[in-house]
């Protein structure tokens, strides 16, 4: 299970909506307790691809985020990105570029703008498992 505070979810949603029609992206950090992950802080980064079909995190912002995590005693847990026009599931490109099998990959679908869907996935090779995200 992986948990996300509602306020942090709102940050993701607002950033993703603000960046439409482009994909939005960022990092997640928090605590690991046994098999569970608890996201405590969401980082909103720039998609340097500026595309509605691809994303790459800005490495300079990534560096600042990692330093902030360290200063605040947070563990890096993975990343998040939005799918402006497709479902909340990893695409083939998402799987191919998921180099860290320990990371959680959150995908926010804005396909139905009235009903955003956010899921978290464990990705290993071509296999993606829904981690059961709980927004609380």
């Amino acid at each position, binding site marked *: 299970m992986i948990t996300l505070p509602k306020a942090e979810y709102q940050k993701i949603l607002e950033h993703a909506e603000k960046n439409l029609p482009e*994909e939005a*992206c960022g*990092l997640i950090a928090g605590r690991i307790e046994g098999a569970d992950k608890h996201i405590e802080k969401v980082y909103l980064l720039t998609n340097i*691809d500026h595309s*509605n*079909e*691809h*994303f*790459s*995190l800005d*490495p*300079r912002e*990534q*560096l600042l985020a*990692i330093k902030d995590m*360290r200063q605040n005693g947070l563990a890096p847990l993975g*990343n998040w*990105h939005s*799918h*402006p*026009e*497709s479902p909340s599931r*990893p*695409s*083939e*490109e*998402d799987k191919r*570029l*998921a*180099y*860290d099998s320990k990371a959680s*990959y959150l995908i926010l679908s804005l396909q139905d703008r009235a009903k955003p869907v956010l899921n978290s996935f464990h990705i290993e090779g071509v296999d993606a498992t829904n981690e059961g995200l709980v927004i609380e």
Partner: protein
Amino acid sequence: MIITVAGNKKEVKDGLTVAELIVQENVETPLYVTVSLNDEFVENGAFESTTLKDGDTVEFLYFMGGGC
């Protein structure tokens, strides 16, 4: 000499290059790693020619991207 890697101080041999550090640190995806040295990014082509000095701070940033 002492350098800081990902926030941890480490003793390494004098004259260690960034490329050697990548091997020493068991970086899993070296082709997709960006290295910052004292907050400046090192060009990928310069890993072998960049020698570390005592007191340097190194961060490994793993490429994160995808599609839709």
